[in-house]
């Protein structure tokens, strides 16, 4: 019972009416904003960060986690109804989901996605409950060299796995690390890159960067982009999947959940890779693979279970190692830091109420999600009918006024707008904002651990390789860093695009 004591106590935390209310609020807001095309989970959480000020840390994180999986499900709705993936992890849902919608089975697709999401997340939470303490206890012995290596590996993995050019992603990460150095140096007290500006002496705040790059950046980008899409969503009926549908999808849901759980633990785009892998797996194991792309229910159920399972298990590296696995987790990491909580191996033992409260809130949040999503689909469809022209200024105002309320400072709002412009330009020039934000939140941790390691190792960098864990992590780092370069040289001639794949497959079919 020693293990389950704190776990059960965590339920007391969740069942506190305030926490329940914020959990509900998070899920609903997450779904609502997730439905809006163009704003994915990272942007949604970034815009709503100001809401977490002035509430208890547990409550804040419970709400943010709710927003996260709510937005995850919201993205599915646009995939199915508009053929517009709300985010990268719902892209494969489009293939069969939209076709199902065209066949008049939109309700079934959304219903099975909700059930699959619920099941995937639940499997993942149970896995998290058992795996997280193990990982944390393993990481308790980590010293500065291990943390240095781990943070470097985490940043590199996110940079190389995210879409776009690897080199540009690494540049973005370097910029993030650099921005983290602005302000007073914790070791020597020297002012770095403040140019005598008092507002910069304490360093750049995380919230304006996240709100700007993800929030305003996306909003500006959508101003330019949204003229591209203007299809009205179709009607939705029969939301409750029939017994036959559930039977057909159950295998896919089970496989997707387990696959998603394991892929989600790995740093970098867990949910996206999980949904892609699950789709591929379903197609491979199906008796009749040709049904895929023509409205196969497994093509919705598998990836949707997998991406929610992965989204949930991506909390493991954050809560046990203090290393966010993706951009969204980086924002939650930042929110925790603001609340005065440093996620890491000590979190479970030092702050069991927070840890188990957040973990157990996911059960409640997913039950809420399941209960709310099916009856609320009609509401979401109506939201989708609201013209983007009217929604855009609303999201912009929420961001601007929200940014002001953090510290009642116009300087913060200005920073948000400026980082918004930077985010927009980064997107246009092919730089991902994700690695930048991730590197920014890990920046001071990485620097202080590196400097502490150098002190411990008396300035001898080879010392990193005499400790087994840091040596392993660094070897992995080098492999991850060098492998894409070798691979890109090999693959240079081969076009990796899906379009090329399509023509290849066609040629095969013709042959």
């Amino acid at each position, binding site marked *: 019972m020693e293990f389950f004591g704190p776990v059960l106590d965590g339920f007391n935390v969740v069942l506190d009416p305030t926490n329940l209310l914020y959990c509900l609020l998070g899920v609903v807001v997450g779904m609502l904003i997730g439905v809006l095309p163009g704003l994915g989970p990272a942007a949604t959480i970034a815009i709503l960060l100001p809401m977490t000020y002035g509430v208890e840390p547990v409550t804040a994180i419970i709400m943010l986690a709710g927003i996260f999986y709510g937005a995850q499900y919201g993205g599915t709705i646009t995939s199915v109804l508009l053929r517009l993936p709300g985010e990268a992890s719902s892209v494969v849902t489009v293939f069969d989901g939209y076709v199902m919608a065209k066949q008049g089975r939109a309700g079934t697709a959304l219903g099975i996605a909700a059930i699959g999401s619920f099941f995937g997340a639940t499997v993942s939470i149970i896995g998290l409950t058992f795996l997280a303490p193990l990982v944390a206890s393993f990481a308790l012995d980590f010293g500065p060299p291990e943390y240095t290596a781990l943070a470097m590996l985490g940043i590199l993995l996110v940079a190389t796995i995210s879409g776009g050019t690897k080199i540009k992603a690494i540049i973005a990460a*370097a910029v993030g690390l650099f921005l983290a150095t602005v302000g007073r140096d914790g070791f020597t007290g020297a002012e770095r890159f403040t140019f005598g500006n008092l507002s910069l002496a304490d360093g750049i705040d995380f919230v304006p960067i996240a709100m700007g790059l993800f929030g305003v950046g996306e909003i500006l980008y959508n101003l330019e982009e949204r003229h591209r899409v203007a299809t009205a969503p179709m009607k939705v009926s029969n939301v409750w999947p029939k017994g036959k549908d559930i039977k057909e999808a159950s295998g896919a849901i089970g496989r997707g959940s387990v696959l998603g759980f394991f892929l989600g633990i790995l740093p970098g785009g867990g949910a996206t890779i999980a949904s892609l892998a699950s789709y591929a797996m379903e197609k491979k194991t199906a008796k009749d693979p040709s049904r895929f792309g023509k409205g196969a229910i497994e093509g919705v159920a598998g990836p949707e279970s997998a991406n929610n399972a992965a989204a949930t298990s991506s909390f493991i590296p954050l809560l046990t190692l203090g290393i966010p696995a993706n951009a969204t987790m980086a924002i939650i990491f930042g929110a925790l830091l603001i609340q005065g909580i440093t996620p890491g191996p000590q979190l479970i033992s030092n702050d069991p109420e927070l840890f188990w409260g957040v973990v157990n809130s996911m059960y409640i949040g997913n039950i809420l999600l399941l209960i709310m999503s099916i009856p609320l689909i009609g509401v979401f469809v109506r939201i989708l009918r609201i013209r983007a022209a009217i929604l855009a200024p609303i999201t912009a105002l929420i961001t601007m006024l929200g940014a002001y309320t953090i510290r009642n400072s116009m300087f913060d709002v200005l920073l948000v707008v400026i980082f918004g412009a930077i985010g927009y330009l980064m997107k246009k020039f092919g730089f991902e904002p994700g690695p930048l934000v991730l590197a920014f939140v890990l920046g001071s941790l990485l620097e202080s651990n590196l400097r502490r390691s150098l002190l411990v190792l008396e300035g001898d960098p080879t010392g990193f390789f005499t400790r087994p864990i840091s040596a392993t992590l660094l070897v992995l780092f080098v492999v991850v860093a060098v492998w894409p370069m070798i691979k890109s040289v090999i693959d240079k001639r081969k076009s990796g695009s899906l379009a090329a794949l399509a023509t290849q497959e066609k040629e095969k079919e013709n042959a």
Partner: protein
Amino acid sequence: MDAKKVEDKQGKMPAALEVPPNTDEEETLTPEELAAQWEAEAPDPAGPIANLFSSLVVLALSIIGMVISIGLGLGTPAAPAAGMWPFIITLIAAVMSVVQIIVGRAGGKDGEKFSSMSWYAVIGFATLILMVVLMPLVGFEIPSLLLCFVWMRWLGGERWRSATIYSILIVGAFYAIFIAALGTTIPRLF
């Protein structure tokens, strides 16, 4: 600018920006064809000049960063000074931007070309900046109203009447939520 002009303007949009007709063909698309169609509809990549320009900006900034870092003092590995870590990062950024200049000299597939629609983002940014400037002076109501109206009428192509009505409703709702209900201290006129 009246509604007709907006329509004219949208009529002249480049082909890639036009909404694809919602035909029944879509039903028969395989995932691969759909992905190919997305790729075809996607905007052109930013191209070699944008690559060179952005890499040079990074290079210039990282060189400045390196110079300042040296000014802060690097110290030794055993006793690193304040400038050591920023120096390492800016050095990595500088090296990577040089690599990017070489690797991406043909343009690559990333990024997006600026189009005539990019002006919408510029106007959007300008209205946000204007709001930051005006809010401390006249409160949030008038700048918000202006922002909503500009974004709906000119950036969104709404009609005069709907843009006016929705702007007023939205600002009213924000007043109700942020001022009346939450009691925040956002600068306000009323």
